[in-house]
């Protein structure tokens, strides 16, 4: 099986709200999967079901872990929740030992892994510090270590970068990408699109408990491209009126070209070359942020239209 996690008709209702509305979703092994959506979309509800914190009303969850025979699948998930904290009175080393052993590691193995990660993130000095002596950002790094220390196959990070400074954000990003290279699967929940664009392979956009967009990041961007190209050139356009093209000058030697008639790229290039000498020819893809806002607004409008 190439999907580490398969959700089928996942459904969860609270008193008045449908938090997760019959969602089907496959998470491919080794991917960094972005779970996107506005606040209150149902991301955290979904994650809590996957991590066995809340019960699902109906539907099914299937895990396909490489390592068979692990009795307790809880041990093979690492979870960094959005609501996160540490025992304030406990030393960092003790806490990490506790968390690692709670995930089924032997004391020896736990110690080994903790040392490895503390070293890797330059945190060795913190071993004997109490959590309450650390800053919020430092605590967050400890929480990150706590979520991966047992070397799970599936990692779930809920807004992992919120509250981190740019340097630590970069460090964490680097670690996450590295984990994915080691065949770990990462589910990454956020509403910060720029981060998703940087590191995610696949995304699912959730709103009001429903998936409104799903697939490989590249495919999605292509799907939402508006056939606009940026060209840099030498020379002058004799006429701006070329059949099927809408040319807009940005500055001298740079223009945006809209391909209204969907000519193939090679033909488009040829058509433009007839007029000017082309230096560069780039397709402008929409940012995920634009797609996100567009899709959420569209979904909202559709809902309203349905109500009227």
């Amino acid at each position, binding site marked *: 099986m190439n999907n580490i996690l398969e959700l089928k008709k996942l459904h969860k209702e609270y008193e008045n709200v449908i938090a997760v509305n019959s969602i089907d979703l496959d998470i491919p092994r080794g991917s960094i999967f972005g779970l996107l959506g506005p606040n209150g979309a149902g991301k955290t509800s979904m994650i*809590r079901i996957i*991590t*066995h*914190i*809340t*019960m699902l009303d109906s539907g099914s969850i299937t895990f396909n872990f490489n390592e068979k025979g692990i009795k307790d699948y*809880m*041990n093979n*998930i690492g*979870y960094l*929740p959005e*609501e*996160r*904290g*540490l*025992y*304030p*009175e*406990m030393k960092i080393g003790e806490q990490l030992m*506790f*968390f690692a*052993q*709670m*995930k*089924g590691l032997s004391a020896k193995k736990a110690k080994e892994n903790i040392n490895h990660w503390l070293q890797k993130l330059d945190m060795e000095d913190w071993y004997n510090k109490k959590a309450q002596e650390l800053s919020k950002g430092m605590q967050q790094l400890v929480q990150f270590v*706590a*979520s991966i220390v047992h070397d799970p196959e599936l990692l779930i990070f809920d807004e992992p970068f919120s509250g981190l400074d740019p340097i630590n954000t970069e460090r964490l990003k680097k670690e996450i990408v590295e984990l994915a290279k080691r065949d770990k699967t990462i589910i990454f929940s956020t509403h910060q699109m720029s981060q998703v664009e940087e590191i995610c392979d696949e995304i699912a956009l959730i709103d009001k408990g429903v998936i409104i967009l799903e697939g490989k990041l590249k495919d999605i961007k292509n799907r939402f491209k508006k056939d606009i190209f940026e060209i840099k050139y030498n020379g002058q356009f004799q006429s701006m009126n070329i059949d099927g093209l809408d040319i807009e000058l940005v500055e001298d030697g740079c223009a945006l070209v809209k391909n209204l008639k969907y000519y193939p790229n090679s033909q488009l290039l040829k058509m433009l070359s007839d007029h000017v000498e082309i230096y560069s020819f780039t397709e402008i893809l929409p940012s995920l942020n634009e797609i996100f806002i567009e899709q959420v607004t569209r979904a909202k409008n559709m809902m309203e239209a349905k109500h009227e």
Partner: protein
Amino acid sequence: MNKTLLVFKKEYFTRVKNKSFIIMTLLVPVLIMLLMTLPLLMTFFKSGTNKIAILDESGEFAGAFNNSSYLEFSFVKGNLNEWKDKLNQNEIGFDGLLYIPKFDIKYPSGFVVYSDKQIGITIQKTIENTLQNKIETMRFIDAGIDKAKVNELKVSIDLQNIVMQEGGEKKGNVIASIAVSQVMGFFQYFMIFFYGSLIMMAVTEEKKNRIVEIIVSSIPPFQLMLGKIFGIAAVAITQLLIWVVFIMILMTVFSLFMSPMLLESVQDLDAIAGSSSQQITDMLGSIEAFNIPLMLFAFSFFFIFGYLFYSALFAGAGAVTDDNSQNQTITIPLSIPVILSMIIMVNVAEQPHSPLAIWSSLIPFSSPIIMMARLPFGVPFWQLILSMFLLIIGFIINTWAAGKIYRIGILMYGKKINWNDIRKWIFKTP
């Protein structure tokens, strides 16, 4: 179950290593010792020897007053008003003046102690007893009765109660039974409230520190609850053991230093209270007459499981709340059965085999206290077994329910939760 052990260890060691725990553990025995010895110490330091002057106008009491370690009598002569003035001006070095007027032996009255401060109950009783004795003796003589003869003819009856049981007769002693049972019951009551609130805080800890999600995604709530409840039970037992050992050491040290003084004042107190040491030995004797191994086992069992049963309830309560002010309101419904049990316990001492006693010693909410209270009076074997069984079942159900409540209630930050919600969580969630 490994994870339960981990939680147990974490709860136990973080608490035992905590500074405030260590301070509390060492301070309490000292405080208890102080409380126990303070009244005695106070009599030593305050009283010294009280000097009482006696102005005896009747002339009947010469030699009637015996000096003791804290009371010294001396007869004086003169005018009452003069002596009162002297006493007022603190000239004479006496703490009090006992005035004995001429009195009618049929209606003796007019005895007064003048003092600058209120005299103690001990002094008052001693003087009263002496006066009464002397006047009684005078009356005996007037009536032509030999007082020595009367004393000889006096009799004291000690009613013994022998409980008929299979395997022989046992000497029962109602007073001893009541004392033992009430003390145990009260101790249980104290334990439940003292450590119950600790359990509640332990359960809210993860919620308060926002660690719940990591914990609940690592360990099933039932196991988590078990670990916490047993962890704190172990803390309680550790603390109690340290206290017991520490108090015993302090007592030994104390008695080494104080025994001569202590002995004296105990004798004095003894004389005042009029209790004979014979009764005390009797009482101790009848405690020995109980089936000691069974009693010890049953006491320990009801003590530990009663504590666990209520701990689980407190854990459930802790799971619903997320701050300590809420904790207090929710403990009220929990304390009602305990307080009711305490009330029933008094009744059980009078009627240990009434239906009320039997039922309340079977129901887990009251059995830890009531069964303890009934034990010294003898309880049928089947009732004991049934009660134990129900208590264990009750503990498991409570812990399971607490786990359920925890799993759902713990993620509800800041939402007011009512009883209906809790009922739903327990029974409606899979």
